[in-house]
């Protein structure tokens, strides 16, 4: 077996590719998307299709006194109406996949998350009843005739208010609304370091709640087949195998092999489609009762109300420095909202994916972080692009930026005085970074952003009555989720493997079945590039199949920038098995020992000779041989591999944002945004750049525009349409300056680290620091709307 482990090399810009890996190849999936041939869940209409509509709670917190469905059942076209009372006792609640153990040694509070409300509703949008009818309009009309009598209860939506004694109780079993209090790091060492610090920088801020807003709303289409007692579920989802496992084993108690979950083309996820939601689960359950396929598609306001949200932290953070600006310690206290119920991965986001990243790119020797997770009368909060790591970067980089300003040390200089430069590096918060070169990305970003010319641009802007500012964010993330033993020791209730199957057809064409899922990332192209490169084939000779439990052996799906690092490696391992078997077949054909056969450029050759057989001939021999060593080798050329990473990957980089603020209005314009990232080796630079552009725009959205607002009294979601929730539009962002530096990951064969979340991780701190620099304030709350910036300028 060829050793494909990437050699560690000095940091370099991406090398010119010699094969498909590293090439800017146009995407294989594009033609179907560009011609309207994509197949998203709502595009699937099944024979005898019926339609579902969910009646949702209009209250943030209420007791349900009664639900009367008689009139609604007589409404035209109605096929069935189901409430919490109709669910059999054997049906479980929606599970949470990560058990966090608190500082008191107790497991987190895990109140039942019912599929349909059981006596109480706990947020506006909580699912109360499913109506199934011949048409969507009929289902909606019938839902209006359901008579639900509520006794409204006081609600709490702000995480800080929720944790205060006397706050309304979201769940009786969670006193003071606390789900857990969890901590990481050495508190005594941290406190001791603070005691001798020459300077302490302190910030208190909110990391604003965001609503993910994939442009394709969540949707499902569930069908029961009487002939073999099986179910098929189409669902807009990022990980169909996990969806099926959780739904069958933990909620509905259905036999897993009788349920096929298909996540066809999925119109964006950003985390919000990782989870097992009530809607698809109820539709699967009801599809057998109705005897017809049930299609449900969220409208946009439903998506705002019921998709899992992101962020929503209130944090106090302190950085201790010596007189030379060397970081001595960091102390962080965060209150994180969980929402009304624990979503699938909710508990690990503000803990395992947050506190572990607080070392950032720096040698800070002592770090302590305490997180209080609280229930609130809002939609559940879970992973949204970056998931914990943007929040961590915001803490670290806002502290570093503020400390540099306070100590009058240049932003780059303070960072350089504290960069980690020796690898592997064990942080004081559990992670071990394998490789990196933080100076290279900082240098590259400063050059690309033309920091040297900033003073001149600032003066030119001032002449026009505008204020220019520069903000840095040198971020790190932990991707490639996850080494299963590490995840398990931290509370994960499942390993985080990935599977890949490589099927070579008799003509030498290849179909790859991957447990990763593409919902915009371009796996059909990048994964094909990897396989084509290794097997010496054309990219068009390799097809990638994803998103179907009926065709793919297993998968943990796509999130946490894990696809190429974990899913890609599983495929590489399967390819290695194909090559190993191919060598044996080729050896037989050439009548030599397989140890004398090498595989290169799509040919199996006898070492040191020009004797060879091409890959396609070996493939044909594997399936339809006249002459085959049947006593030693099975026919066929189809291999499956599982891969469990040995460590996380650590993409890192520096983002520099330059803003211009209008003095009169407070309006902020992004004058330029520069990102220089180290994602390890790169398979397709065009796709990587696209991921950065998109991530940065979501980060700019968080910093300038987006903010989920619940009314503090009524708990109503005030930002439930695109008129109220400001999404970044084309004119809100500039064209970006992006580049990469490469330190290959040391522990996967492709040397890759992942690139999907970096933009959203680095951008918020860079933007906010740039605004603070421009208007001369210490801090400003996100989103930094024109009004907030204007008020801050008035106060300054």
């Amino acid at each position, binding site marked *: 077996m060829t050793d494909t482990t990437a050699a560690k090399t000095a940091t370099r810009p991406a090398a010119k590719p010699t094969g498909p890996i590293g090439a800017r190849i146009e995407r294989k999936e594009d033609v179907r998307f560009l*011609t*309207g041939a994509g197949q998203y869940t*709502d595009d699937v209409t099944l024979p005898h299709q019926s339609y579902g509509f969910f009646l949702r709670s209009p209250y943030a917190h209420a007791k349900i006194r009664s639900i009367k469905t008689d009139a609604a059942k007589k409404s035209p076209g109605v096929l069935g109406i189901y409430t919490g009372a109709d669910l059999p006792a054997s049906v479980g609640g929606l599970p949470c996949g990560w058990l966090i153990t608190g500082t008191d040694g107790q497991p987190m509070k895990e109140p039942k998350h019912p599929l349909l409300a059981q006596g109480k509703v706990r947020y506006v949008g909580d699912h109360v009843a499913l109506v199934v009818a011949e048409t969507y309009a009929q289902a909606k009309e019938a839902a209006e005739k359901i008579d639900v009598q509520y006794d409204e209860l006081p609600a709490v939506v702000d995480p800080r208010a929720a944790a205060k004694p006397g706050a309304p109780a979201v769940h009786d079993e969670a006193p003071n609304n606390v789900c857990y209090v969890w901590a990481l790091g050495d508190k005594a060492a941290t406190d001791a370091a603070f005691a001798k610090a020459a300077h302490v920088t302190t910030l208190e801020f909110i990391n604003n709640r965001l609503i993910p807003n994939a*442009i394709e709303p969540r949707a499902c289409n569930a069908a029961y087949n009487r002939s073999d007692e099986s179910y098929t579920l189409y669902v807009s989802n990022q990980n169909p195998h996990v969806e099926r496992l959780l739904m069958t084993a933990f909620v509905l108690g259905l036999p897993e092999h009788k349920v096929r979950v298909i996540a066809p*083309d999925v119109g*964006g996820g950003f985390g919000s489609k990782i989870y097992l939601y009530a809607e698809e689960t109820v539709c699967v359950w009801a599809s057998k009762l109705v005897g017809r396929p049930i299609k449900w598609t969220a409208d946009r306001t439903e998506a705002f109300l019921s998709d899992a949200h992101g962020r929503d932290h209130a944090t106090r953070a302190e950085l201790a420095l010596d007189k030379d600006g060397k970081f001595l310690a960091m102390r962080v206290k965060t209150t994180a909202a969980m929402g009304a119920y624990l979503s699938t991965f909710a508990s690990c986001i503000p803990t395992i994916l947050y506190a572990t990243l607080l070392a950032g790119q720096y040698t800070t020797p002592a770090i302590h972080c305490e997180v209080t997770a609280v229930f609130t009368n809002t939609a559940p909060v879970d992973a949204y692009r970056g998931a914990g790591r943007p929040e961590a970067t915001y803490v670290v980089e806002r502290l570093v930026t503020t400390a540099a300003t306070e100590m009058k040390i240049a932003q780059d200089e303070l960072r350089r005085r504290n960069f980690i430069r020796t690898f592997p590096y064990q942080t004081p918060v559990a992670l071990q970074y394998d490789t990196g070169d933080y100076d290279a990305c900082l240098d590259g970003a400063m050059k690309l952003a033309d920091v040297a010319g900033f003073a001149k641009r600032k003066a030119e802007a001032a002449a026009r009555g505008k204020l220019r500012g520069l903000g840095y964010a040198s971020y790190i993330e932990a991707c490639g989720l996850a080494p299963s033993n590490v995840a398990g020791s931290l509370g994960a209730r499942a390993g985080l493997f990935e599977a890949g199957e490589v099927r070579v057809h008799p003509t030498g064409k290849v179909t790859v079945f991957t447990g990763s899922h593409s919902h*915009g*990332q371009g796996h059909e192209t990048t994964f094909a590039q990897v396989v084509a490169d290794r097997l010496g084939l054309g990219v068009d000779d390799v097809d990638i199949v994803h998103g179907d439990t009926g065709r793919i052996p297993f998968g943990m799906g796509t999130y946490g920038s894990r696809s190429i690092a974990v899913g890609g490696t599983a495929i590489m391992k399967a390819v290695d098995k194909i090559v190993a078997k191919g060598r044996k077949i080729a050896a037989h054909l050439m009548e030599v020992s397989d140890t004398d056969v090498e595989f290169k450029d799509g040919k199996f050759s006898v070492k040191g000779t020009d004797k060879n057989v091409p890959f396609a001939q070996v493939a044909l021999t594997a399936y339809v041989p006249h002459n085959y060593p049947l006593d030693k080798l099975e026919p066929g050329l189809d291999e499956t591999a599982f891969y469990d990473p040995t460590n996380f990957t650590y993409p890192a980089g520096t983002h520099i944002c330059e803003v211009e603020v209008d003095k009169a209005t407070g309006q902020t314009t992004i004058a330029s945004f520069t990102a220089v990232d180290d994602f390890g080796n790169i398979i397709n630079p065009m796709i990587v750049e696209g991921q950065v552009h998109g991530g940065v725009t979501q980060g700019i959205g968080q910093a300038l525009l987006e903010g989920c607002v619940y009314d503090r009294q009524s708990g109503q979601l005030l930002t439930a349409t695109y008129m109220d929730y400001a999404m970044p*539009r084309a004119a809100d962002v500039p*064209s970006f300056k992006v580049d990469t530096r490469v330190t290959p990951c040391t522990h996967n064969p492709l040397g890759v680290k992942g690139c999907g979340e970096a933009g959203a991780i680095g951008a918020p701190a860079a933007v906010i620091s740039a605004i603070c620099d421009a208007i001369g304030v210490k801090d400003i709350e996100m989103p930094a709307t024109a009004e907030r910036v204007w008020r801050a300028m008035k106060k300054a």
Partner: protein
Amino acid sequence: MGISVTLTVNGKAVTAEIESRTLLVDFIRTRLQLTGTHVGCDTAQCGACTVLVDGKAVKSCNMLAVQAQGAVVTTIEGLATSDKLHPMQAAFKKQHGLQCGFCTPGMVMAAVGLAGSMKEPTEAQIREALDGNFCRCTGYHNIVKAVKDGLAEMA
């Protein structure tokens, strides 16, 4: 309650009996099974449902099908000819102006709709002109490049 509507969709004459409240987008997606036109919001904010009505880019979630009586409608399915992509589609592919593909049909139709009024637009003009179309994946960077190329090719 039924009402008859006749229009031309992607070059073909279509006559159908529909409920008067039927939105153009639902008519296109459900009745004509042209599922390339998408629904992202239903309040005319996101632009995923953009089609051409008599050559103008229109959000089909905000128009009744009966309002298209006698109109010539082009959806994303009607843009490419045989095996050749329309220049705007080709430009989106070349510039990686799409990721998940969901906003793409509306974005491409909106861009094609600019051709009459914009020959050699600046980047800022393109960004302003795409104000009615959301993309959550690309950050617009490559869409702007694609639209610039596509419009140049169409001119």
